[in-house]
């Protein structure tokens, strides 16, 4: 049932045509389940108004239209901050937040995985413990702290907390631990400094872990709507703007809302499609395993 292909010789386990069809069919059904809400959003976005208000809602669209999208942009163009501003804001936060989180998490993960220094085990236990705390525990004090630091209503409030986030660090530490010590020793014998070792050995070899964290982090930041932290209209993110548009008249703007949802989903999906190959395929690289 499981086809095993090895890189060098291409030995394949025998699998019948029926087996192939069964696997493909199964994957397709599961895919349908996963994709259903996404399809639902697209279909809703394509529905004209009378089909939108139909009850019970139908799964197929009879007369597809792009009106919802044009409506959305029309509504957006009436706002006094241009839509592109919101999109740029979101991109800025998502990219900067992701880069900072990934870089610092990888840097911290390297010594945690490969060096022995006093307090290492305690530090790692603290990280694991930190994973268990729900964000609600620290939410109120964090807000109080941010107002003390005077960074509420600025991007610092959105980006800085991610420097100390534990999930990325945990994933990367687990991954770097699996890298063989031999390549690090080889680097050391060749005279590489610790920085050099990190940037030219650890960093490229942990691409899968890094990309995984990038995906999580980007999606997380892209989808965030930090209502409590950002008040200025010109600093708001795309999603907040869209919610404002839709909230104006939930029933009449239902279609525009679905169109907005579809537009919002696209960047994370693109990021995922671009990076997923890295995530799962760079693992098989020669020097590593």
């Amino acid at each position, binding site marked *: 049932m499981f086809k095993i292909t090895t890189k060098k010789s291409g030995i394949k386990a025998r699998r019948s045509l029926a087996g192939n069809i069964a696997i493909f069919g199964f994957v397709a059904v599961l895919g349908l389940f996963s994709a259903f809400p996404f399809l639902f959003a697209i279909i809703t976005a394509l529905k004209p108004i009378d089909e939108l208000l139909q009850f019970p809602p139908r799964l197929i669209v009879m007369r597809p239209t792009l009106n919802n999208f044009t409506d959305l942009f029309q509504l957006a163009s009436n706002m006094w901050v241009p839509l592109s501003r919101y999109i740029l804001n979101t991109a800025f936060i998502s990219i900067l937040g992701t880069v900072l989180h990934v870089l610092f998490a990888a840097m911290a993960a390297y010594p945690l995985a490969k060096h022995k220094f006093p307090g290492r085990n305690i530090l790692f236990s603290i990280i694991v*413990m930190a994973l*268990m705390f729900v964000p609600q525990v620290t939410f109120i004090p964090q807000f109080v702290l941010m107002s003390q630091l005077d960074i509420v209503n600025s991007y610092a409030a959105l980006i800085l907390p991610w420097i100390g986030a534990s999930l990325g660090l945990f994933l990367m530490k687990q991954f770097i631990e699996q890298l063989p010590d031999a390549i690090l020793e080889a680097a050391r014998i060749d005279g590489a400094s610790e920085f050099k070792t990190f940037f030219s050995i650890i960093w490229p070899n942990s691409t899968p872990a890094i990309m995984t964290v990038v995906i999580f982090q980007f999606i997380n930041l892209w989808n965030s709507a930090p209502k409590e932290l950002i008040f200025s209209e010109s600093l708001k993110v795309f999603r907040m703007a869209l919610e404002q548009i839709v909230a104006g008249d939930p029933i009449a703007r239902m279609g525009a809302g679905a169109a907005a949802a579809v537009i919002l*989903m696209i960047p994370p999906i693109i990021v995922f499609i671009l990076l997923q190959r890295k995530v799962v395929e760079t693992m098989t690289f020669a020097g590593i395993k």
Partner: protein
Amino acid sequence: MIRQLRALPYTKKKELYGFLFVLPWILGFILFFAKPLFTSLLYSFQNLEMTPEGLRGVFIGWDNFEYALFKDPAFIREVTNSFVNMLYGVPLILVYSLFVAVLLKNKFRGRGFMRAVSFLPVIIASGVLMQILKEDVFSQGMRGGAESVYLFTGAGINGILNELGLGAQLIEIFNNVISRIFDLTWRSGVQVLLFLAGLHAIPGYLYEASSIEGARPWEQFWKITLPMLTPMMLLNIVYTIIDTFTDYGNSVILMIYNTAFSQVRFGYSSALAWLYCLLIAVFLGAVYMLLKKRIVYMQD
């Protein structure tokens, strides 16, 4: 000073660099996590009130905890519920995601696409679509991945089944099954990805050698794939447990959230959150201890 540093033996230098590399993260961690965490621990022993000058707390000792454990009718019940849900949810998610990962590891046309599709729930569930569909279009005030599932079965699939002319009872059974599968697919995107990464990390020569020795794919799965996946399995188990406990749809989380923001009882809410986290920590510790010895690490 610099000369002194240079003169340090290699191991000492390495330690120093270790600290240097961890430092930025630690600073962020202390400022934005450890410090607020400590403050919330203090809050949990206080009765906090909003005053014009800001929050003011009165120290009340263990009262909050005592109330949660012995007087609050909801807390213990909700915690028990979420443990029971976790106990049957986590194995299901893990088995399912391992199965899907093994299927998706196969080479077939459109594999990248199928992988993206299996990850869609993670992209969407954490995102805006649910929000907009739930709060604005259907305005049913539902939250979280688990609940959002019912929205679709309720609105979409029921409609289709009705059109197909199925009886009410059949529809209900069908609905239950489907919502379970939805729940499963919707909560296993990350796990599938982690397992896929783990599968790709297994060196091909193990399979090659074993198939020369005459191992069937079935045997290879149990004797190679599964043991080699155990480190990833541990990671996945920990991730799934935390994820189920801290999901937005989790009733305890909702309770903590409501206590803080609807009832404005910050002190009591902190105490609830702390109790809940301690329970999770104890449980995870037990799981980790139990599984630690069964993990197979590849020796180079």
